[in-house]
């Protein structure tokens, strides 16, 4: 260290130091991710990995596709997926039909009223799912508030069968799913530039036409992403259809439970689960893609 380094040497030394500091910085940040990765590895990847493995183990313990083949050939499983899809679709249609007008009006309310109205959408969101399911059980029973109300009004003579069947399951699911559509749809509607609607109207469009040709197309990507998400969440639904369906509505999640715990057929349960997972992830990828297009907007 008797001679001072030449300028080129010092800059390369400097570069070396900077590179090391950069590396240290990156490693220390990556270390912050480790607890999360370790947790997900234990609690998510390991159980799912084990199920994936079990789904390919045949009865004799060797590798086989028999679990998946059985899903294809046994009518019971086809029926389960059929029912799951139909209930999810019906629920999603109802959620869309109620959710769109609700989000629309919420987005157009004056701010003060809007905050209050949003609280009413948030309240069910923060009410435990079991509490709401229980409340529906009481409201929908033969002599519950709804049936007694309708009889009292003279609209019906005999109580309607609203619970312990598909109707009950769908009513409960729609109520639980509604905020999942309304909250994101509300914020995407708030992001629509109101001047565009004013411009349409200025150019002679009727209110209906301004909505149909300007507002609705702008809200469509957010709407589609939202309903896809609702549909996906419905596919895996367990608690509400199990209680309100009264054991008569068997959706995929209940079938997986029964196959695993009642019949202790882990291979069959796993293959059912993996099929459900693959469908779910594909639909989520579609929803993400649609949602990302929503982010870009049409006029930007």
């Amino acid at each position, binding site marked *: 260290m008797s001679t001072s380094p030449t300028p080129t040497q010092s800059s390369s030394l400097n570069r070396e130091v900077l590179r090391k500091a950069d590396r240290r910085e990156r490693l220390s940040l990556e270390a912050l991710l480790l607890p999360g990765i370790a947790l997900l590895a234990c609690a998510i990847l390991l159980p799912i990995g084990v199920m994936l493995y079990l789904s390919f183990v045949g009865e004799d313990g060797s590798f086989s596709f028999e679990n998946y083949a059985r899903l294809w050939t046994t009518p019971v499983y086809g029926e389960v997926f059929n029912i799951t899809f139909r209930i999810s679709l019906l629920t999603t249609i109802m959620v869309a039909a109620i959710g769109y007008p609700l989000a629309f*009006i919420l987005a157009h309310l004056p701010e003060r009223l809007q905050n209050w109205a949003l609280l009413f959408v948030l309240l069910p969101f923060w009410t435990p799912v079991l509490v*709401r399911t229980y409340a529906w059980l009481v409201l929908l029973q033969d002599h519950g508030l709804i049936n007694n109300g309708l009889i009292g009004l003279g609209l019906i003579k005999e109580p309607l069968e609203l619970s312990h069947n598909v109707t009950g399951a769908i009513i409960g699911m729609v109520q639980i799913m*509604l905020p999942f559509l309304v909250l994101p749809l509300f914020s995407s509607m708030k992001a629509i530039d109101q001047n565009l609607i004013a411009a349409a109207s200025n150019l002679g469009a009727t209110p209906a036409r301004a909505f149909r040709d300007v507002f609705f197309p702008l809200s469509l990507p957010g709407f589609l992403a939202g309903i896809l998400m609702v549909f996906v969440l419905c596919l895996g639904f367990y608690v509400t259809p199990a209680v309100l369906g009264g054991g008569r509505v068997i959706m995929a999640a209940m079938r997986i439970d029964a196959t695993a715990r009642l019949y202790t057929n882990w291979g069959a349960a796993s293959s059912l689960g993996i099929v*459900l997972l693959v469908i779910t992830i594909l639909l989520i990828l579609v929803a993400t893609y649609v949602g990302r297009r929503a982010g870009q907007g049409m006029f930007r």
Partner: protein
Amino acid sequence: MKWLLQPASMTQVTHLQRLWLYIITIFAIAFLVAPTLIVIPMSFSGSEFLEFPPKHFSLRWYESYFTSPAWMRATLISVNVAILSMLSATIIGTAAAYALWVGRIRFKTALWGLFALPIAIPVILLAVGSLFVFARLSLVNTTLGLTLMHTAIALPFVMIVMTSGFASYDMNQEQAARSLGATRLYAFITVTLPQIRFSIVSAMLFSFFSSFDEVVVAMFISTGSGATLNRKMFNSLRDQVDPTIAAISTCLVTVSILLIVIGQLSRSRAPR
């Protein structure tokens, strides 16, 4: 009535023309809040049967809840697991969200995909898979097992909340503190943390509630004396509907309303 004929928007559509939309909205909101609010009067009913409106006023279901050792034990287990999951999910999730937000991390997209997995996977799969794995590790019916699963399930929510918290905060402030000699941890705790505290509060509320509300995984990996409140409620809903559940539900709804109020307060005070 004059109000009905006034324009409701820039398209000059009148409130009268939108009346049908207002009616749908009112019905939708009633539909949304009815189940939450109906349990409150029900819980004060003196009758053995579920009836609405209740004919006699009584506190017997509250008594039967608060004096039942089984219900109390289940409540304690749920609260315990929810607090542990809240703490671990908030800490782990904040650390991960911080690293992904500030750093030039390798495989960033893949990592985001990994951290979003718990939302994407139907919870029934996690339940069956974790039962199979935990049975072999003697983790069934343990606080550790439940906390592990509930923390993982809450992690994506914490990360979403924290990322939007970081996005609304100027990271250069932390850089400034570090360039003045503070270590990263010290800079984070003294400079960043106080400014993102509202996001931390929401992340904690979310993760607490997500654990407390979780039924399916708890149904599989907690049984008998180790059952959570939700699991016990689910069982009694399926077997015979016990009005004690109305009393428990009212307590839970009260807690939910408190959580919303805390959330709203912390948001309205949050710097914009």
